[in-house]
């Protein structure tokens, strides 16, 4: 009785399963949309500060000095680096804490942890595999509409799945859905923004520039009754910082919640101002829509958020109808209107405004003067920015020229394979031939900048493809190995054609390499033979001449 041949032992199977599980867990944990809310446990500065001795000192600097006193001076920088890092981490933490306070996201961090804990259960394996597959296919969507359809359809199917899933026990609460959405968007968000940016038309004047230009605007310019000209920034501090934090959020639900919070904070600020005013005996109309929109415009001006139009477009496209209903929808519309107001604002300095375009409460001479002042500021800021950018590119250039010869060869030269083959056939030394070829080329045309930068950004899995040409490999060969780090679990049936293609290409490449290797060996052997033949010939000539000489001698 013949026993079946076991290709995979039980241990190996266990090992593979564990490996797949580890990779799934890494995938789940690589997204941290609520990373602001996890306490950082390795803050050495915090550790020092908590030490009893620190209680008696005004700051930790003396301890630091003591700790670093005996170190040689050249290692001081490396010694101090962790402390510098920890201080910057602390600064980030403080910033995020103000965000936490405003959003009260501790609760949501809790829900998020709960959801990831359940995603990490072995029972959720099918869900995670599906998610990974979806995320991969999502990145190939080419239009916003296709992306919206795909993600919304997928979210609906996820909610349907968890309703009957054993690991979720029918948990379909609002929080769970919200956190699942956040998780999926943390994987998809970058592609969404890529599509949006592609879709957005370049405007002559960017919103950021316009906001910068309008920094002189005061409550009185916008018909707002509750804010005095000097105090509004303090009163609206919280919504301002919330609006700035919008760019750190991933999913429509998270962002809409932030927008709603901004709206409520503006309302609360207006309400407290109204209370103060009526207590002082002034009669004032209650704050309402007449005040909320202008106050939101002030918030926008003070916050100067980055990529605001992209965020709005993202919400408009990716938030569901259901999410845009109710108060959150109203808050979103108000923010949208505030941006629209800034964009449409008529800044015609001749005092003749176009019909239908909103204007500020300011006479034309004053507007002219203010705009001129602020245009100067904007110009200066842009100049500084450009200078910085130039500096950065200069530095990049420097580092490029410092690159050693080999990396230049590898990265930019697109070698003609036929020339190389001819050289080889001629029996030239390939390394010498290459160096000569490159020097000739460099004389003809300077290296294009993009070629340098693009080759620098290549990651490990996509090793520079032009290098393939150097060794005379097949023309379609690329050193990008799609499945190099893929675990067996995540390979799908649809991957098989790609996998086979890659396999065939690798076989072709290997065969080419072997052929060229044997050609080289043959060439060497030929040379060796030639040399031997020559030697033999030489020795024969020498011997025969010797023979002739000795024969002559004998004859003589």
């Amino acid at each position, binding site marked *: 009785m013949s026993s079946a041949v076991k290709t995979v032992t039980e241990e190996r199977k266990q090992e593979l399963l564990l490996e797949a599980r580890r990779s799934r867990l890494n995938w789940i944990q690589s997204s941290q949309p609520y990373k602001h809310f996890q306490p950082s446990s390795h803050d050495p500065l915090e550790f020092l500060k908590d030490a009893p001795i620190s209680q008696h000192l005004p700051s930790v600097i003396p301890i630091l000095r003591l700790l670093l006193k005996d170190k040689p001076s050249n290692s001081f920088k490396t010694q101090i680096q962790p402390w510098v890092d920890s201080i910057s981490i602390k600064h980030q933490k403080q910033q995020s804490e103000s965000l936490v306070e405003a959003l009260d996201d501790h*609760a949501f961090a809790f829900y998020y942890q709960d959801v990831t804990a359940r995603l990490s259960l072995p029972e959720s394996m099918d869900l995670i595999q599906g998610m990974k597959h979806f995320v991969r296919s999502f990145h190939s969507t080419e239009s916003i509409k296709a992306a919206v359809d795909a993600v919304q359809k997928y979210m609906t199917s996820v909610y349907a799945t968890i309703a009957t899933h054993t690991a979720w026990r029918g948990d379909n609460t609002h929080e769970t859905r919200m956190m699942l959405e956040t998780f999926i968007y943390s994987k998809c968000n970058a592609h969404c923004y890529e599509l949006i940016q592609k879709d957005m038309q370049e405007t002559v004047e960017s919103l950021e520039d316009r906001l910068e230009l309008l920094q002189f605007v005061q409550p009185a310019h916008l018909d707002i009754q509750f804010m005095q000209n000097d105090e509004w920034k303090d009163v609206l501090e919280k919504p301002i910082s919330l609006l700035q934090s919008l760019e750190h959020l991933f999913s429509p639900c998270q962002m809409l919640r932030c927008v709603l919070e901004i709206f409520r904070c503006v309302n609360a600020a207006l309400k407290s101002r109204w209370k103060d005013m009526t207590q002082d005996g002034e009669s004032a109309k209650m704050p309402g829509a007449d005040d909320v929109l202008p106050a939101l415009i002030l918030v926008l001006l003070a916050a100067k958020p980055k990529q605001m139009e992209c965020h709005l477009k993202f919400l408009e496209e990716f938030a569901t109808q259901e999410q845009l209903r109710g108060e959150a929808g109203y808050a979103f*519309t108000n923010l949208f209107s505030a941006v629209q107001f800034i964009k449409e604002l008529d800044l015609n300095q001749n005092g003749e405004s176009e019909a239908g375009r909103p204007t500020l409460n300011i006479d034309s001479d004053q507007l002219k003067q203010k705009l001129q002042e602020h245009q100067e500021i904007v110009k200066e800021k842009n100049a500084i920015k450009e200078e910085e950018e130039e500096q950065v590119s200069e530095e990049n250039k420097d580092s490029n020229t410092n690159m050693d010869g080999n990396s230049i060869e590898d990265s930019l030269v697109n070698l003609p394979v036929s020339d190389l083959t001819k050289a080889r056939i001629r029996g030239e030394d390939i390394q010498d031939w290459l160096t000569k070829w490159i020097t000739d080329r460099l004389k003809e045309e300077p290296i294009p900048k993009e070629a340098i930068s693009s080759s620098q950004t290549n990651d490990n899995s996509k090793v520079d493809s032009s290098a393939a040409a150097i060794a005379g490999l097949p023309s379609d060969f690329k050193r990008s190995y799609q499945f190099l780090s893929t675990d067996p679990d995540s390979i799908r049936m649809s991957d098989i054609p790609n996998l086979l293609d890659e396999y065939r290409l690798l076989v072709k490449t290997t065969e080419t390499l072997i052929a060229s290797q044997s050609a080289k060996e043959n060439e060497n052997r030929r040379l060796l033979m030639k040399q031997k033949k020559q030697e033999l010939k030489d020795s024969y000539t020498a011997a025969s001449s010797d023979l002739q000489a000795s024969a002559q001698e004998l004859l003589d």
Partner: protein
Amino acid sequence: MEQSNACKVVLLGNSGAGKSSIAQRFVYNKFNVYNESTIGASFFSKKIVIKIKNAIESEEATERSVKFHVWDTAGQEKYHSLAPMYYRGAKAAILVYDICNKPSFDALGSWFDRLKEFGPNNLQHIIVGNKCDLNDERQVPRQEAEVYALNMNCLYLETSARDNINVEEIFQEIARKLPENAMEPSNNEADADLLRLDKSSRSIHDRICCYS
């Protein structure tokens, strides 16, 4: 039999006509009092139940409950061009003017023009002359407004948010006229979410304790 529907209504009109007061009277039954429970003074939501008579007399009248989401808009001239963004998905627009302020009545024309150009199809229009308690200071004769409303083919009501006259009626009329198919089902979960978001952060923490 009860049906539940959500309906978005947008308030339009010049500053000072009393849009916010009408909404506050409708939702909180209060006038010019800043209630502690008021979250914002520009977005309101309230559910009302009306009875609709059936075509067949012998049958019982149907009850229809409508959850109104009232969107107030800024009335200052400089923000008028932004109003179309607020119309999207609205089922009704309430155009408010002050009967003691002729310019606010004259402005209705431009509001209608914009509604015609940018408003959704099948949007109900209602003209409301507010502050009818100040009849002595009236600048717009009732008849003129009624003729105008007739020409625009829409309902006209005179209200007083201060004295609570005809405010509830505006919304009852809207609810009655809503075509069955034009209404979105009021999603209970979304409503629950609205309530949940209204709660203070403390209650969220309380829930955590229960959860853990």
